[in-house]
Each structure stands twice: as C-alpha cells, then as structure tokens.
C-alpha cells in the first residue's frame, strides 16, 4: 500500500499551521464574553468590596459592616436552611426519578415523561415564581381545595415565615429539577448494559443495582449538580423578592443574603457593603465547589 503525497495547501497542512483554529475561535468568543460579563464585573465587585464611597482602600470594613447589620445572621440562617432543604431534595428526587425513568420499558412513555419533566425549566425564573404565587393563594389557586385541606385559608397563612424554606424548595425544584433529571437519565444510559446484566445474573435486584452500581457511577454527575445547585441556592433572590411583593411585605424583603445586598445597594445607597456580601457569596461558592471537587475526584480520569 502506498500513500500519495498530500498536495500543498490541503487542510491537514493548514491544521499543522494552526491546529483546531475553528475550535479556538468558538472558545475565544466565549472567553471574550466571559471576561466582559463575568471576570470584569467580578473584579469590579472585589474592588468595591475593599474600598469605601471615596474609592480609598477600606480593608475589611465593608465585610464588618455587613456582618454587624441586624439582618445579616438571619439571612445567613435562612439561606443555610433553604440550601439543606433544596440540596437534599434535589439529590434524592432527581436521582430517584431518573432511576425510575430509566426503568420504564416502553420508550414512548419515557420520552413523554422526559418532556414533561423538562417543561417547567422552559419557564423563566420569575415567570415560574409567579405561577407559584397563584398556586399558593387559596382564593385563586386551581388546587385551593388541597390548600384548605392542609389548613390554609388565606395567602398569608400559606406564606408564613416558617413555611418559606419549603416553599422556595418546591418552587426551585419544580423550576430546575426537570433539566437535571434529563441529564442524570442521560448519564444512566452511558452505563454499560453488560455491567447491569452481570449484576442481574449475580442476583442483584433493582434496589441493589441502583445502590451498588448505578449511583456510584453517577457520582460525578451528582457532584456537578450539587456544586451548581449550591452556588445557585446561595444566590436565592427572585423567589423571596417576588413573594415579598406579592405578600405586601409579609415574607420580608431581607430574607436572603442577595436581598440584603440589594437593600444595601439600593435602599441604603451603600454599594461597597453590597459588594462585600456578593464577594462573600462568591468565596463560599468557590470553596464549597473546591471541597466537593477535591473529595469526589471530579477531575480524575476514569
């Protein structure tokens, strides 16, 4: 067998000159946008966080001012409680529903359910919350009978402060979990059928297969989901802000740290302290992501 010499100017020669340039161009566009709308604003926020209104270096005084505000620890507690509810429910129900979906033998049903799961995610965040504001008001809700059976006769009773972590979890799950179910379902499809078959031959039932084979192999996807959900959860804003408006203030407009930051910026005209809270959220998100990545072997090659 002989190989004909490539003529000058063939694609392979150009790849040698600048290999993968199309890929670099696509990545470059993203990098430019990332720098413009991600890195520079983040740097600007860090600059604000360490300066005062006169643009002089202020050390950690903005962080101290945020931490000594009477609303700060309440907001930290609210966000922490919400994160526990949100992350636990997300992992348990997303993995559980994906496993059930994967066991559906009739492909038509599987497609239909995946589509149904995904529909809420198509609604923008604020629109989803507005849908829920109607759902939770017994006087207009299509499920008002259920709310009344549960003992709620008015919107004020439904949005009592003690119910907010659960309500925000339900709204967030309904809005965002469908996409994750589809992603985890895709990951389940990547597990070798021979492996599952071998487990079945060895006598593993559905539960043992899920617990000992499928969930361990989903570990990286679950970690990825938790990292993003954690970062999103710490930035809780739209849900309490809209609920506060709808409940004419009963839900409070300083429920979350992001709301507190917004209040500092636009109620107290104190952008520096607002930026300090934003930087804290960024640092917490990065640290938690780092811990999860390090302890899960997220970047390890299989």
């Amino acid at each position, binding site marked *: 067998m002989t190989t004909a010499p490539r003529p000058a100017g063939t694609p392979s020669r150009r790849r040698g000159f600048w290999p993968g340039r199309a890929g670099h161009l696509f990545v470059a566009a993203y990098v430019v946008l990332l720098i413009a709308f991600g890195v520079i604003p983040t740097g600007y926020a860090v600059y604000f966080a360490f300066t005062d209104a006169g643009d002089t270096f202020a050390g950690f005084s903005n962080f101290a001012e945020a931490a000594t505000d009477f609303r700060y620890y309440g907001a930290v507690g609210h966000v922490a409680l919400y994160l526990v509810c949100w992350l636990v429910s997300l992992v348990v129900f997303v993995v559980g529903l994906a496993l059930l979906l994967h066991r559906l033998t009739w492909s038509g049903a599987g497609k239909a359910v995946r589509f149904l799961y995904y529909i809420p995610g198509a609604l923008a965040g604020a629109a989803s919350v507005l849908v829920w504001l109607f759902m939770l008001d017994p006087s207009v809700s299509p499920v008002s009978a259920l709310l009344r059976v549960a003992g709620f006769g008015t919107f004020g009773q439904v949005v009592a402060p003690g119910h907010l972590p659960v309500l925000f979890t339900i709204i967030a799950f309904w809005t965002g979990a469908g996409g994750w179910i589809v992603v985890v379902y895709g990951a389940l499809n990547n597990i070798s059928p021979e492996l599952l078959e071998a487990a079945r031959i060895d006598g593993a039932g559905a539960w043992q297969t899920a617990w000992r084979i499928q969930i361990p192999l989903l570990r990286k996807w679950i970690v990825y989901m938790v990292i993003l959900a954690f970062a999103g959860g710490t930035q809780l804003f739209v849900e309490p802000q809209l609920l506060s408006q709808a409940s*004419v203030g009963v839900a409070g407009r300083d429920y979350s740290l992001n709301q507190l930051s917004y209040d500092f910026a636009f109620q107290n005209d104190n952008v520096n302290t607002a930026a300090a809270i934003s930087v804290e959220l960024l640092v917490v998100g990065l640290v938690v992501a780092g811990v999860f990545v390090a302890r899960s072997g997220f970047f390890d090659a299989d």
Partner: protein
Amino acid sequence: MTVRVRATGAGRSSGRRGRYAGLAAGVAAVLAAVTACGNGGSGAQGGFEPVPQTGGKITVWVDSTRLPAAQLYQQQHPAVQLEIVTYDGDANGSNYLQTKVSLFNRTRSGWPDVVFSSQNNEATWAVPAGFTAPLDKGRIPAATLSGWSAGANDPCTVDGTLYCLRNDLAPTVLWYNAPLMSSWGYQVPKTWEEYQALGQRVATEHPGYLVGTAGDNFTPEIYLWAGKCGANEITGPKSVKVTTTSPACTRMAALLDTLVRNRTMATSSVFSSDFAKNAADKILLLPGPSWFGGSVFQESFKTPAGQIAAAPLPQWAADPAPSVGNVGGGTWLLSAHSANLKDATDFLTWVTTSDEYQGEVSPGYPAYAPVVKTWLAKQSSSKYYAGDIAGPLRGAASQVWPGWGYGQFSQEAIWAATVTPGLTAGRTIVSMLPDWQAAITDHARSTGYEVGP
C-alpha cells in the same frame, strides 16, 4: 447651614438641636458636595446652582394614576416638549426612584426633570443625594406656596428649604355602609369605645360582617397613628423617637385584638384576593384614608352607588384633641439637574395647583387648598356616596396627628414583616408591641438614625 427634616418635635428643644448640629453639618457638607458635583454651572440662586439652561425637552416620570395629569398638561401646553415616562411611582416602597437616581448619579446623566412619587419621605434621601432643586428660593412664588394646607409640605422641607410639593393628603376617616347601618338600627360611632362596642354587637347580631381590618400594612397608620401612639416621632435629620408600649399604643392595640378575636376585624389586607372575594361585601365599617372611597370601594370592590358614606374617625372619649392618621398622599420633585427649569417648574406648578387637574381629575384630596372646593364638589356630584363626604374629609385634613413623622425607613414594611405574620398565626398585637419596637429600632439604626426612647 444645618440640615433638618421638619417633623413634630424637631426644633422644640435648643439642646436637642445642638446635639444634632454636628451630624447635620456633616449631612450638609455631603449635600453641598454632591450638589456642587452635580451642577457645575454658574449663577447661584439661593445657594442652588442650576446646570446650564439649554432648554428643550423635559422628561416627567409619573405613575399610571398620574398619567392623565401629564397628558392633560401636554394637551393644554402643546408648545412644551414633554416626554412622559410611566413607572411604579415607588408604590409599596419599591424605591425605584432612589435606585435609578443612585445609578444616574454614578453615570452623571439620565435624571428626569420632574417626578411624581407615592411616597412622602423622598426628601430624606433625595436631598442628600443632590437630586432635588429648592422650590422656595425664588423658583415658585411665595404666594403660591402659601396655598398648601397647613403642614402638608412638612415632609418636603429640609432645613427650612422646600424640596418637593405634596400632591394630595390622605387623612383617615370612618367609611361605612349607610343603608346597612340604618336598617340594623346602628349609630355611627363617635368614640373608639362606641366603635368597639358596636363591633361586639355586630359579632353576635350579624356574624361575618366587618368593622375594619387589621391585616393591611397601613394598620399602624390608620389606627395607631390616629391613636397618638408615638412609634415614629422623627425628632431630627437622623433621629427618631420610638415608643410602642405607651398607654396610647396599648389601648388601641387592645381594641384591635378584641375585634380580631370576635372576628369583626379581618386579618387580611383590603388589597388581597381573599378579602376581595370573601369580605368585600361584608363591610359595615372600615376606617381608612380618604382615597379608600374611590380606589377601594368604587374601583376595586365595585360597591354599588348610594351605599358608602364617610364620617369623622372616632376619638377616645377622654381625649379632647381629635386626631387622625394618614395613609399616603404623593409628592412631586423637581430635578436639580434639569436643563430646562423654566418648563419643568411650570409643569410642577400646574400639576399641583391647577383646578383642571387637581380639582376635576385627581383622585386624591388635594394638598393645595384653593382647589379643594372643586374637588369636593366633584365628589358630591358623582352621586356615588350616600350623603355628603365633604365635611368629614375636610375636617380630617386638619386633624392629622403631627407626632408621626416621615423617616427614610418604611413603617409599613416593618409592620408587615414583624406584626402581620404573628397576627395571622393568632398572636395578639399587644403581645407583639415590644417586637415592633425592636424592629423599628433596628431598621432605623440600619438607615443611620439615632433612636431614642
């Protein structure tokens, strides 16, 4: 120069005034610096330096309710180039205006020339932010300014200088269903004692009917302000006196608790969907501001004509000095950054004083006294009300208790977040008065106020 938000109690004590001098001087310095930065033109007018007056288009921001005012002005003044922008009017304390002005101050452009706000406390931030132009230093004639009802422009006055104009007043009166009261043989209560007694009779004789609601964010302003509860006495530019557990507070709170307990007082807001659906046709009495008649009964509840009447708000029998609360009443602000102050001032003057708008069209009780007669005649001619509401409204306008001020922090938001959830959960208002005081104190301090007992 000192900066001082005028309110009851402010300036009564020279010692207190001296105590605030340092703080006031600081605020004045900030104000002067911001104003100087924001201007840059020459030709000072009473300490205010306008930007170069290039004329041209003026931009006015109004809420949907005030949109007809701007449209009517444009119709009558076709030569003025007017850009009308509608926004939420800072309804429910949204702080949209403050947010935008803060951003405009950073970008150094974009300020509207004239703005309507549904909040009365805008001067507390707009003056230090350098947004507002003084109105009484030769810009609007003193003869015109003297037409405002006594005390109406107090929230707009900082260190004796007027920085905004009150659009309307919103004193509280007692709205009631006249045919029902008559057919059931009830007398309209003149005292709070009679009001409570009537509520107790209604509870047994006509269960389901209401004599008021304690579920609104306005509850402290309708009841506790009227009852002379000193929860919000602004005593200086950045100082407030907060006392929520005085006898004046506890007896009004106890009255509310009694009527909530016997279910003649609702715990939901008149603006909530469940109130509109379940309680709107069960109102026998409803203490509320002057605009409840048109906005709540006529527009929201669609109560038929000939049913709703107004009476003076009840008073405590032993109190010889009548007092009412106030809920709302918007303000108009003129931008210090306007490049066409002549047209902007003309619009501002027209929209606040004209009989064509304030007397004939405006839904609220006018703050500018000369047009009140036209406005009241308009209400009477509508034939909507059972009887003449002019007397009670006119009387209430001069009885707003001056011991409740207009601070930068929102009393409505504090009440909604602190007291309303507890009320929904079955707690008494009396038991929550200390919590309310702590919440007011915390919010006041977080906005830079010195809080006194």
